[in-house]
């Protein structure tokens, strides 16, 4: 195994840059594969071996791999969150949650409809802060990959994309159920049963999502670029 020259490294970086990979995980793995392979050959074989690699890691192969990885990361995060959600409810926690919900429903009945909408914003803001924090953490890790590979294009973790898509679904649901009827000036919307049920369900959904996202992130941060 030999050390590659600066010229060779530049050649590898250029070859990988042409593939326009945007997933940091895929870029990192392909770059390591190229280097590991080429290091085991002598200088005179470099061009030939690089060509061989280029035949395997074609533009379309890299993009297909990237798309599959994004899909797999979505599945992984969702399963992780769902498993956490299922295992979260042990008997003491279930009892605690039921007591909390009873107190919440009682409290819900005593406050004004306008305040209910405002309260709903609290978990949404928490999710926003959590997502922002994960984004910053991921940005720092990906910046290192970008520096190593000299990537000119914008790259990001596929896991981060998954989390951000989920977050956009949260805000969209809030807009659809709370803001749209308000903008359209639906009469007595804030006093309707629909609003009560929708806002209460959203509160539970946002809280559950925040808890599971945080736990999933805690598990994945050790091994992924988030």
């Amino acid at each position, binding site marked *: 195994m030999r050390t590659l020259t600066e010229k060779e490294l530049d050649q590898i970086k250029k070859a990988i840059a042409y593939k326009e990979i945007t997933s940091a995980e895929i870029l*990192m793995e392909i*770059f*390591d594969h190229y*280097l590991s392979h080429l290091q085991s050959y002598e200088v005179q074989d470099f061009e030939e071996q690089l060509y061989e690699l280029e035949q395997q890691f074609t533009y379309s192969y890299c993009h297909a791999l990237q798309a599959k*990885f994004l899909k797999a*990361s979505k*599945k992984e995060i969702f399963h992780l969150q769902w498993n956490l959600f299922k295992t979260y409810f042990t008997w003491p926690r279930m009892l605690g949650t039921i007591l909390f919900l009873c107190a919440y429903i009682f409290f819900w009945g005593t406050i004004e409809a306008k305040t209910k909408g405002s309260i709903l914003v609290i978990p949404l803001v928490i999710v926003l802060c959590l997502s922002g924090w994960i984004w910053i953490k991921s940005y720092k890790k990906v910046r290192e990959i970008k520096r190593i590979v000299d990537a000119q294009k914008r790259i990001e973790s596929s896991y981060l994309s998954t989390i951000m898509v989920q977050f956009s679904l949260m805000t969209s649901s809030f807009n659809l159920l709370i803001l749209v009827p308000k903008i359209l000036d639906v009469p007595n919307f804030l006093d309707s049963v629909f609003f009560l049920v929708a806002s209460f369900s959203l509160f539970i959904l946002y809280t559950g999502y925040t808890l599971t996202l945080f736990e999933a992130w805690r598990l994945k941060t050790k091994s992924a670029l988030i």
Partner: protein
Amino acid sequence: MSNNNLIKGSLQTIILKLLEENEKMYGYEITQRVKELTAGEIKITEGALYPALHKLEAEGLLSTEIQQVDNRVRKYYSLTKDGQKQVTSKMSELQGFVENLQRILTPDLKPGFNI
């Protein structure tokens, strides 16, 4: 030897078995280990290896670890507890298949032979 189609169905088992024997491995290392063990007869293509690794990771059978090695970042794969459980069942599944295949290819062989 062109055996890519034959390997396809057993690639996940090969990966799991190798990771059972080695604590952690990275993508290129897996391809080289297979090549070494089979004296170059079986070559795992990158086209099949990485999607298989990512799939096993998404299914929770593999865990990953990122390490700075020389002038780059390397992703290591290792078995999770679920993955360790899966190795035995996947191995016996594959061995059973190979035995049955052998019976088809050489019908004279008595049942219950060991490979």
